[in-house]
């Protein structure tokens, strides 16, 4: 099954996971690349996205598995034809065969961009570094049966202050993305909870790269 690496940026970050599936299905159709369909009463085109992305989050590393029917089309051509047929913000970077098994995808590198309208508070970087070097940072996560408390520390492989400008503090976080997964939103809610003086005015998130357990790039 071929796999596409794609990015979701700009206004496309406000497209929900289910809407994105529909958008991609239509994109394939517009590109003249017929997808195989599921069996059953209500056949659905076969596309699946590896890690559903929360609304509002930008990503440079989304994976899409799909299956085409009919005459084979070279991967580069699939990429180019799809890009001609997709709206702004959704861009296919690469199409390739023999993608790795998704269960080997274990780590996700995210940027957590904290915005402070009155400027980044003093010692913010140091305080955040100290908070996450401890043994326990609890944060809530929406579970299927309501909110659950999770300790973030065991899920975090690495947390760094990547940049600290006048009014923005950028954290890069390498953390588990499957069983259990850390949601980057938990990082900022933990900061607001443990370090109320560092509660940001706004937070943006970006998925930068995905890795296997040995921190080798996952494709």
């Amino acid at each position, binding site marked *: 099954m071929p796999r596409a690496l794609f990015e979701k940026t700009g206004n496309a970050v406000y497209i929900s996971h289910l*809407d994105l599936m529909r958008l991609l299905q*239509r*994109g394939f159709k*517009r590109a003249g690349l017929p997808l195989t369909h599921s069996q059953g009463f209500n056949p659905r085109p076969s596309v699946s996205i590896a890690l559903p992305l929360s609304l509002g989050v930008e990503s440079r590393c989304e994976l899409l598995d799909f299956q085409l029917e009919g005459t084979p089309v070279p991967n580069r051509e699939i990429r180019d034809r799809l890009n001609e047929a997709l709206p702004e*913000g959704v861009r296919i970077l690469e199409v390739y065969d023999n993608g790795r098994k998704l269960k080997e995808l274990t780590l996700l590198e995210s940027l957590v961009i904290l915005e402070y309208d009155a400027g980044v508070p003093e010692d913010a970087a140091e305080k955040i570094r100290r908070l996450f070097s401890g043994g326990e940072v609890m944060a809530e996560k929406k579970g299927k049966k309501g909110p659950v408390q999770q300790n973030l520390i065991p899920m975090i492989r690495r947390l760094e202050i990547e940049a600290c400008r006048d009014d923005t503090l950028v954290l890069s976080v390498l953390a588990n993305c499957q069983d259990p997964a850390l949601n980057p939103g938990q990082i900022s809610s933990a900061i607001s909870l443990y370090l109320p003086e560092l509660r940001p005015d*706004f937070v943006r998130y970006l998925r930068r790269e995905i890795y296997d357990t040995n921190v080798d790039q996952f494709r």
Partner: protein
Amino acid sequence: MTDLKHRILPTVQKPARYTGGEWGEIKKDLKDVRVRVAFCFPDTYEIGMSNLGMRILYGVMNGMEGVWCERVFAPWGDMEEAMRANHLPLWALESQQAVRDFDMIAFTIGYEMSYSNILNMLDLAGIPLHSKDRPGLHNIVFAGGVCAFNPEPLAAFVDFFSLGDGEDITVEIVSLYDRAKAEGWSKEAFLREAAKIPGVYVPGFYRHEYHEDGTLAAIIPLEGAPQTVTKRIVEDLDNAFFPTEMIVPSTQIVHDRANLEAFRGCIRGCRFCQAGFSCRPVRRKSPQVLYRQAVRTLEHSGDQEITVSSLSTSDYRGLKELTDQLIPYCAEQRINLSVPSLRADNFSRELMEKLQTVRKSGLTFAPEAGTQRLRDVINKNLTEDEILNTCAQAFSGGWSNVKLYFMLGLPTETDDDVLGIADLVYKVIRVWKEHASQRKKGLRIHVATAYFVPKPHTPFQWEKQITPQEYLRRCRLLKSHFYSRSIEYDYHSPDLSRLEAVFARGDRRLGPVIEAAVRNGARLDGWDEYFNYAKWYDAFRECGVDEDFYTVRGYDEGELLPWDTIDVGVSKEFLLRERRRAYQQMVTPDCRHGCAGCGANALLKEVACDA
């Protein structure tokens, strides 16, 4: 730093409704643009983007050199709250720029219950509500759509109305504006010239006077305005503009599929139906053109479903030819073809079965009335035998879901007619027992009743609406006769239809009521989540306006009607004749069985009525 709007977007429901950027969106370079039009739909994105009329006119206006038309929708409550809290004025999707910076503000109005949204959107945009408070050419507000056929409740707010099919008249209006702006005309000069365009109605050029009993005494044209304004029609739909390159929303909308308009007008003449009269005469599109447009639309959109729409698609003469071409194409492309509005009386088993090869949908009938007597009164030419025969065919073909839609409060309706609905439903159940091929699934009959709303430009435009109490009594009476577990009965709450009735036949004295209701917080009235009659009740009391005057009073045949200025092509004599026939329980055959002489064919210059 992230700007305000982008900080708000992640906090509201379905933010993709507010960003634009969809496939097929039209963007222009501002340096090539002389006239900017903010095309507003007075409801949410999901509703507005499902509207074919808006899509057509978006294409028409953007097809004009020097004109950029952008879309604007009503924000959902959470977004409105955030906008007001942060002083963020309403913006258009394409450029994301404030609506108040646009030259022209256009509304398409298909439903009376969106009047609050019109005012609320102007308010959110920071544009003065009253026409008189917008002195210049900037922010000219105009409106079209079915509700423009009685525009009086909006007369104080909208500078002018565009009546009928918009393909040609919109170009004339925007071109005139282009010239007016270039030559620096005053607003009055522009409106005077606009009023000369056939189909343009400028309410400010008419004075309404009332009798002491509240009825209309006179409508006096000023500034040389015509006594009546006749709606515009497109005669040749084959050569009319149709947008095959449409916007494909990135988020799910109500009608999330391609839409093909088979023809305009209706040969039926159901006496309650506003569209059936006000969209006359019948003009068809050839199946060849439709097929070509279908393929092009589907190729451009990537949609997996297409619907052939019209007021009564079975009456489309080219239906067989069209579906013979479309069905194989859709099957090959794995596209689901749906053909709604098929009539029971010529619902061919053949077409039903062919459509089934793609996907099977439910069976829906709108007998509207429970007895043949009352169906004759309303001229709904659908007999019980036709319904039961079609059900029998469908049940033996494996269908097990039926929806039946009725109205309560129709003229001359008695309790026998109400209980006739229950009789008909039980007959459908009996037919299922005799014919069902898939018994295991069981039968589901969904029955819904609506509260009859008399509409302008119909033979029932003079009728009384029954009181909400009486409507509810009839609903309960009917409900007490439904025992079977197969039946699911829904009846609409009367408040919304009562209000719809007020505004459908309303006059200028309702303007202050809409304004007061919006001040009280009325908006998104078409949505259960927001509709609150109390806000309207208070507004009526504040303004000293009695709802009953417009609803249960009924209008006298000799009375001057607020919409008498508007000519939709169907003559008042014809409507009166039809009203008489209704009371005599006389059916008027459909137009294909003989012209009933409605008068709408006089609108045609180049072709004959295609009824």
